């Protein structure tokens, strides 16, 4: 924070003023808070996906791809229910579970493919998942400029029918029910990892695959399942974004949220309970950054620097915890008794 304060100064702005705007906008105004919630929902879902996969030892990085495919599948489903389309209007309480299922399945199968490569062929999931993002984004570009393109100049679909939109939950803001889905998902992920034998097996697999195999767990299947859940959550993020916020599918809809979500998960130290607050802080800061840019004329990229510094500090603290400063020659005269275990 102090470091960034100097960056503010270099733009001739008061750091206090800048920080005030950065946090006042998202957490001090109703409108800004609504926007913060809008950004929080997909971030949390992707962070939850990251937690499921990473704690199972599957270093998945393909959430951008899951996100756009989840968004695409949901949009396709929503457009089918437009008046005059093949299916026609469907009551929302039937549409929503279907949309969630579609988004989840689209992302899940996509990530599951990467899981399959890793589990059966031993490929490197970091590389493959990263590359799979590009494939998914090209699929999206094809869809919005080809079969699903709306008449007009922009590569995007028609506006989705109003009956398929997620309800707004705070009057006077853009906040939608996606945040409720995210909170429910956080609860489910917590339950899976902490309370269910399947989650226990996934965590054991993540820590130590040899021990998992020894204990009779099917490691390949656990990894596959983790990939499916993780991708599903990523796809769900796309569902929420397209039904709650964008209301249409377009090129560039993800805007890097698939990577920021991973960062949120790391900041939350892969703890599902901490995900929602962390994502809210992160989403809020990006809303504040936009406001800051408008008012104080400071580039919003400064906030990005602040966020990156926060991640680095969190990660660095992990390393620093294991070091203590030692002053040679200052060892006490009467040393404490030796502990049971000495590294041999």
């Amino acid at each position, binding site marked *: 924070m102090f470091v960034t304060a100097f960056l503010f100064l270099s733009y001739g702005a008061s750091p206090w003023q800048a920080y005030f705007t950065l946090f006042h906008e998202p957490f001090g105004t109703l409108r800004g808070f609504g926007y913060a919630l809008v950004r929080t929902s997909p971030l949390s879902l992707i962070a939850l996906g990251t937690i499921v996969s990473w704690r199972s030892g599957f270093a998945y990085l393909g959430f951008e791809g899951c996100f756009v495919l989840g968004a695409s599948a949901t949009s396709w489903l929503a457009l089918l229910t437009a008046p005059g389309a093949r299916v026609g209007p469907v009551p929302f309480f039937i549409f929503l579970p279907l949309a969630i299922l579609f988004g989840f399945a689209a992302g899940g199968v996509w990530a599951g493919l990467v899981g399959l490569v890793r589990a059966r062929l031993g490929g490197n999931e970091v590389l493959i998942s990263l590359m799979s993002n590009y494939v998914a984004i090209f699929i999206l570009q094809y869809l919005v400029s080809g079969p699903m393109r709306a008449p007009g100049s922009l590569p995007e679909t028609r506006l989705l029918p109003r009956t398929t939109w997620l309800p707004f939950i705070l009057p006077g803001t853009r906040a939608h029910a996606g945040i409720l889905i995210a909170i429910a998902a956080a609860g489910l992920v917590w339950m899976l990892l902490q309370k269910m034998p399947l989650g*226990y097996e996934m965590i*054991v697999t993540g820590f130590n695959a*040899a021990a998992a195999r020894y204990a009779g767990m099917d490691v390949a299947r656990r990894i596959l399942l983790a990939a499916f859940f993780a991708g599903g959550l990523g796809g769900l993020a796309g569902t929420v974004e397209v039904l709650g916020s964008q209301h249409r599918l377009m090129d560039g809809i993800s805007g890097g949220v698939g990577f920021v979500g991973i960062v949120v998960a790391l900041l939350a130290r892969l703890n599902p309970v901490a995900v929602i607050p962390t994502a809210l802080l992160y989403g809020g800061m990006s809303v504040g950054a936009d406001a800051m840019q408008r008012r104080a004329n400071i580039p919003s990229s400064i906030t990005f620097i602040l966020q990156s510094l926060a991640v680095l500090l969190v990660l660095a603290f992990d390393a620093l915890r294991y070091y203590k400063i030692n002053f*040679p020659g200052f060892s006490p005269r009467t*040393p404490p008794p030796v502990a049971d275990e*000495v590294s041999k």
Partner: protein
Amino acid sequence: MKHTLEMKNIVKRFPGVLANNNVNFTVQAGEIHALLGENGAGKSTLMQILYGFHAMDSGEILIDGERVHLGSPKDAIALGIGMVHQEFMLVRRFSVVENTVLGLRERGALLDLPRASEKLKDLSNRHGLALDPAAEVGSLPIGVQQRVEILKLLYRDARLLILDEPTAVLTPQEKDQLFAVLRKLREDGRSVVLVTHKLNEIMEIADRVTVMRDGQVVATRTIGSTSGQELTRLMVGREVNLRADKSNQKPGAPVLQIENLRVQDETGHEKVRGLSLEVHAGEILGIAGVDGNGQSELAGAILHLREIQSGRVLLNGADVTRLSVAQHRSAGISYVPADRRHVGSVTEMSVADNAILGLQRKYTRGLFRGIREARESALGLVARFGIRTTGIDFAAGKLSGGNLQKLILGREIMRGSAALVVEHPTRGLDVGAVEAVWGELLRARQEGKAILLISAELEELLNLADRIAVMFEGRIMGVVDAAGASVEEIGFMMAGITPGSAPPAAGPAQEARHHENL
């Protein structure tokens, strides 16, 4: 010739632990000095300071009365200090001579292998270390690889050789050869520091012994003026009776039967070659053998952790060969793997979570984990097996080796399986923990479990097992009754010499059997 090493008031602190507390240690020229202590007593730390791996916090090191600085192993080598690590530091694909000159730059950028070979041959003849300089290291037996390590040091003209647990991987015969080499080095005026916790070896070869406990030197004795009992007491801090009292009992029906098993390792080499065994209820069948002769592949295959090429595994008469690991476990085979930190437990997770490893589907309530029941069973395990831990939420990786082993062994015993496969249960454990693990294994035997005990420690097998099968290159060389077995006979079989073709001294196994104590 006077060449002495003195380490004075060495203090070394690791985070949270005082590994060396004012240690004084002296080695004279031409002596074999044993450094004895339990795991964690600080002997490895002391030697690593001497070899320049760790910087000491305070203290001084003198060679011939002159103060020296050891900032890195390079300094140590320059001062004539060499170390043979427990894990050999050899490039397996290189020849002996290539390994020897590795890191040396005798002639700048030029590599003169023929000249180095000559020097090496000369050295090996002088010290009685028969060795072919052109042989590929990976193809040599472990005992010979160890010779390469020693030759490497002699090539650099080391005056002081540190050997860390050198006999852990050797057959009894290889051990004798090593000791002969060490005696030659002593005659040559060189000094040897032998880091070990095997008392009988110290009594056999060392001139003096320094005993460490809890980071401090407890005593230094000349071998003539001490006894194994005194050393044990000094090392452990109390009287220990390391003789297992095995009750007499008649083994029951065969529980675990292995028929003509063939198993390959990861690289496709056949490691178990048509092996058949039978373990009865209430019996401990020991598997002796030098590491790497297929023992761990055998254990893995019994549980189907490894692919089985052919053969059958029967449990109480039922074929379980092709069942999954989980099915093996629920059918009634428990397994204590050799690597307790990387296979037998998840070190990052708590003691409670480790106590249900492999049982996670048993402790359930509907869809959810039965966390309270699991915790209760963990508490029971801690109490029943005397596991020293600050609590069951403590990370299992922070337990000492002995306590972690008790946790794993306890978990596998309490499953109530009919058969128990145990691999190297006391490797690296100190005397107190060995005592406890032995006791538990014998208790399980009394309860009528069929136990397959794989171990490289003959003493352990002779104490615990009812019968000992010796494994060599994937086959059983012979099975002997532990009660009448001789170390020599087992040793020959470990080296691949069948009882019939053994030299006359050993005699055919069935007729004349040596009765010899360790």
